[in-house]
């Protein structure tokens, strides 16, 4: 009996894991390819309603505070959703026009188009993603909003040093409340930015400009429709740009 037992075949106790690993690897590949890791973000905006507003209800913008930004773009032909030569906007090209204060009166506008009066409108080219208009317009907006930006910078220093509270979350929320109060402080000189876009302007540029409002802590901005005065002011600049290219 004892002899028989000792002769019993010893089973290999180790299990071969190779097929298991193979299967796991396949599953991992599947999950990696089918998932979205990057979640989209949202940018909240508020537009006025389309209802007619009576004159006395309108908030009159002080002349010195207004900055009008006009986004212009070029369209290119591209293959989109099955259409071979669909007209889409080129996100890497375009022009940005801006001017301070109120739009000129009809008389002044005539003089501007004739070249008798200096055009208050300036232009910057968008160019590639990093260079071009965005840093330039950021400088301009920062200059207009410098009182707020300086105060926010001070506040940010305090926030970084955890001066409001030793609790990180509490520190954060106090900072947010204070920053909001500064942004809406009517005793400071704050600009009112009016953003307009031509039909061919690319959506990416519009979002970029809206972004600048956040970056520069501008609380008062609006999206408006382009009007004839704006396009008339843009005309001499555009024709000059075409001449320059020749």
């Amino acid at each position, binding site marked *: 009996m004892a002899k028989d037992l000792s002769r019993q075949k010893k089973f290999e106790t180790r299990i071969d894991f190779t097929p298991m690993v193979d299967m796991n690897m396949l*599953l991992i590949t599947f999950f990696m390819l089918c998932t979205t890791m990057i979640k989209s973000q949202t940018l*909240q905006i508020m537009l006025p309603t389309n209802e007619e507003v009576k004159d006395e209800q309108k908030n009159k913008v002080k002349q010195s505070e207004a900055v009008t930004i006009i986004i212009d773009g070029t369209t290119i032909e591209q293959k989109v959703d099955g259409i071979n030569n669909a007209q889409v906007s080129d996100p890497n090209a375009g022009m940005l026009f801006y001017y301070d204060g109120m739009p000129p009166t009809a008389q002044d506008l005539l003089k501007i188009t004739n070249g008798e009066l200096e055009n208050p409108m300036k232009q910057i080219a968008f160019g590639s993603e990093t260079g071009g208009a965005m840093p330039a317009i950021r400088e301009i907006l920062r200059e207009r909003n410098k009182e707020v930006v300086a105060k926010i910078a001070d506040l940010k220093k305090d926030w970084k040093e955890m001066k409001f509270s030793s609790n990180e979350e509490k520190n954060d929320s106090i900072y947010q409340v204070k920053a909001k109060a500064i942004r809406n402080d009517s005793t400071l000189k704050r600009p009112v930015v009016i953003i307009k876009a031509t039909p061919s302007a*690319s959506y990416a540029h519009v979002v970029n400009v809206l972004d600048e409002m956040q970056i520069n802590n501008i609380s008062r901005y609006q999206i408006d429709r382009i009007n004839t005065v704006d396009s008339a002011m843009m005309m001499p600049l555009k024709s000059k740009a075409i001449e320059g290219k020749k």
Partner: protein
Amino acid sequence: MGKVKIKKKDTRIDMTAMSDVTVLLLTFFMLTSTFLQKEPITVITPPSVAKEPVPDQNLLSVLVSPTGKVFLEVLGSKDSTFKSETVRADLLKNMAGFYNEKHPSNPVNFTKKEVETFSKVGAFGVPFQYMKDWLNIKDVTLRDKVLEGEEPLTTKDGKKVKLAGIPISMNENPSNPNEFQMWVRAAYNSMDSELKHSIDKGKGIAIKADQTTPYSVVNIVMDNLQTIKMNKFSLMTALKAEEE
């Protein structure tokens, strides 16, 4: 000279550790993943510094293609009685009510089965008069292709139509809404009060447009929303690092 005894090595590698690692990775991916939603158009959203994440419930997203096709998608709550399916079924009934009020001569009515099919589709965007025909396509891949506009839709009277999203045009008269405005209103008036609440707060409607979309196209959608007083909404963007 003694014989050098070469020790026979076991060539098999122990796979246990490897298996441990792969199982861990697998668990990680399974828990963190949210599956890519099938959308009728591919959209690359523009980069922005905005940090607020897209809500994953109570959301009406408006997909806008660079050529101006518009699609809608509705998400209900994750953990209440108003699941996406319930909200969608309710949305379709509401929409049918609005549509039949405007077109009393040829009303559209849905069967229980059609409502059920609709509650399971993600993004949609067909003219409402063809909605019934579209929902009756049994082949799911064909239904997607018809939605994308790759294949024509065969209507019940044998006509072939190519679809291009929800009909939308400039409209500043709130008492005569176009189909897109009717859809948005139908979603707002659905029995899901949470969706209504988040639309009021400006988080319920998100516009998802490609970065190459001309502004004129986005403007139509925004203007349509402004007309029906849903003037608070958000734009979907991709993350960009904040520059100091």
